[in-house]
């Protein structure tokens, strides 16, 4: 026991001797917290709009007004040459063009159902779809106002019967994406810090030869590993506490669930990430290799966890693959604890496979490590 404590003390001294590293470990997550919680919004606004108005009438002007009086579109200019629209799109100057043809208002009055054209840059398919939807909505509203206009009486005798949506947003009334992303960031933290740092710290000892020095001390192998693991466990928990405090106090993230449950399940998840760190250190020889491999695992895990790409959107075979990703389970768990206040009653389906993965990975890592240094 005494030996393990000495080992832990040595590890902490090594970590905190490296001042810039400590800064990175604690500052970087806070910056990420800030950026991520504000950057991620699929709510599309400020679409760059060009208008080609060949009609130049009161009607076309009022349509243009409807388009420019919303923050969904930013009117950036007019053109009188249709070919110019394609050119401007190629130079990324505009994303959306509305073409109002000649005699539009005249034909509208004569009830000839004139055409109005919307041209959209389809490269960003998501934005393109949303932009077309916005345009449709604005134009339909304009069309409806034309029809209910008292001067235009022939058609509006028929009344429309419309179903309207009354939507209730549960768990997150204001549709604040922070509430969803910030718990996700805690998961990322509990992955990067333990995995990256434990892998690199073990490989570093190998690289500079101090692992052999540790081997000839009376320290047993399991004591060595425990001494390596515990500091990273403690560091991860401290880090998690800091980030969660900032999130709750400054970003006003609501935590509906139990902290104790969260801490307990986090421990089970840390088995996985620390285990992966040890595992990586056994088959890499330099810090650079360890870094690259850890990076690969990380990108793969983040991508397949539903952190920012919903798993439901993925093709079937990738969706099946996500079940092999321990982070997937923890991502669901932590978000459900934070937002829905879910208890083990709902979460055991994720907690069980996560624990199995954790135990498997850490056992594998430890066995491989013991064989390597044996």
């Amino acid at each position: 026991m005494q030996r393990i404590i000495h080992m832990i003390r040595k590890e902490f001294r090594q970590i905190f001797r490296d001042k810039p590293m400590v800064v990175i470990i604690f500052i970087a997550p806070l910056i990420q917290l800030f950026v991520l919680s504000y950057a991620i919004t699929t709510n599309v606004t400020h679409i760059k709009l060009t208008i080609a108005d060949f009609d130049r009438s009161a009607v076309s002007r009022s349509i243009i007004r409807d388009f420019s009086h919303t923050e969904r579109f930013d009117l950036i200019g007019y053109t009188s040459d249709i070919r110019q629209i394609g050119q401007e799109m190629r130079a990324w100057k505009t994303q959306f063009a509305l073409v109002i043809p000649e005699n539009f208002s005249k034909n509208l009055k004569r009830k000839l159902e004139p055409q109005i054209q919307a041209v959209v840059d389809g490269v960003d398919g998501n934005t393109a779809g949303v932009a077309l939807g916005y345009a449709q909505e604005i134009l339909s509203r304009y069309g409806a106002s034309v029809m209910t206009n008292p001067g235009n009486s022939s058609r509006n005798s028929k009344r429309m019967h419309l179903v309207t949506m009354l939507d209730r947003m549960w768990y997150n009334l204001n549709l604040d994406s922070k509430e969803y992303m910030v718990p996700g960031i805690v998961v990322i933290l509990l992955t990067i810090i333990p995995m990256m740092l434990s892998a690199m710290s073990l490989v570093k000892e190998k690289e500079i030869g101090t692992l052999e020095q540790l081997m000839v001390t009376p320290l047993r192998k399991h004591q060595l590993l425990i001494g390596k693991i515990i500091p990273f466990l403690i560091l991860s928990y401290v880090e998690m506490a800091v980030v969660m405090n900032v999130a709750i106090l400054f970003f006003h993230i609501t935590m509906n669930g139990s902290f104790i449950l969260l801490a307990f399940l986090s421990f089970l998840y840390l088995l996985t990430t620390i285990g992966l760190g040890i595992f990586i250190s056994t088959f890499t020889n330099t810090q650079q290799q360890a870094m690259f491999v850890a990076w690969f695992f990380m990108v793969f895990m983040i991508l397949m966890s539903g952190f920012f790409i919903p798993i439901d959107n993925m093709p079937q075979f990738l969706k099946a693959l996500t079940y092999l990703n321990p982070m997937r389970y923890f991502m669901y768990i932590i978000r459900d604890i934070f937002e829905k206040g879910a208890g083990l009653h709902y979460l055991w389906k994720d907690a069980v496979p996560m624990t199995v993965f954790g135990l498997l990975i850490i056992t594998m890592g430890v066995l491989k490590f013991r064989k390597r240094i044996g």
Partner: protein
Amino acid sequence: MTMNFKDSMIPTIARKEFLHIIHDPRTLMILFLMPVLQLIMFGYALRLEIQNVHIAVIDYSKSKDSRELIDQFKGSAFFHPFFFDGPVDKINDLFKARKARVALIIPQDFDKQLLRDTAVPLQFIIDASDANAATAIRNYCSRVVNDFNVSYNRKIPLPFDIRSSVLFNPDTKSTYFFVPGLVALLLIMISALLTSITITREKETGTMEQILVSPVRPFQIILGKVLPYIFLAFIIGIIILLIGIFLFSVPFEGSVWLLMLLSTLYIITALSLGLMISTIAKTQQIAMMIALITTLLPTIMLSGFIFPIASMPKVLQYISYIIPARFYLLIVRGIILKGSTFMELLQPTLFLAGMSFILLNVAVRKFSTNLEK
């Protein structure tokens, strides 16, 4: 600086750095394999189109109209409607067990209301724990409701016709959007991570002092060190571009030469960033951490890779101007998908060139002061 290239130490340093790279086949293999694997995985996984949303329908009406509405949901590609008999307060359990993400409640007199009133409110309860998905789900629901309204009020059309045309990516496939973007992400990560340790390594292993006593100028060392990496990153870039374009059959509209030229400029920017980090950081571990932090998340989140920059808060929009990928994304997507010409891409090109110039300058200057110490 009056020496010509051959007489200078640049080729020697470049050769030394090159040998260092190929002496470590394991790293080299990782370098080539990883981006390819990630490209393939990302290319398939990145989908923003919401699919397979399970919608619980509580139908108290059980009328022809309610069935028609439910059929509209069945007919759309996004929704899997299923009937839910339980009382309304059981919806919470449904959401917690993640069996549904939205519940639709159709009141008993739905068909009568529809005959009588001009506006019939219909309650949708959406699991908004994922706010973005909730927004998307609401949009899709309103689309289906719209379709229902149109077919219900078939006799009253709009007074004009809206014709829409989608340029450059008519089927709005997200693969076409993401594959070129992935090239930007992978190139900057590989380049910055590679060079970030070149100078730190010398500091850590003490070979910096050897450089100190040699008559080589700082900028020659930097140039010599960067050259092999430009070559390496260029090859990796071509490999991922080829795989991306052929595997995902992305149409290539523009000039291959222009893309290679501007990609080289981007690689230089990324390598300069790595070099600058390398001159600042004291240990390899720190260098790699900084490289990772400054490239991975900012490139994914703030460059327009997924999320449109124009929709972000102003502060983040300004920050996005210091992210090289923001400009390269315009270039690579422009050339591949739109066939943009050099003149049309002048602005992002100038930004990248300016950025490399500044980064390299800082690197050389910082490196010189390192040497003097």
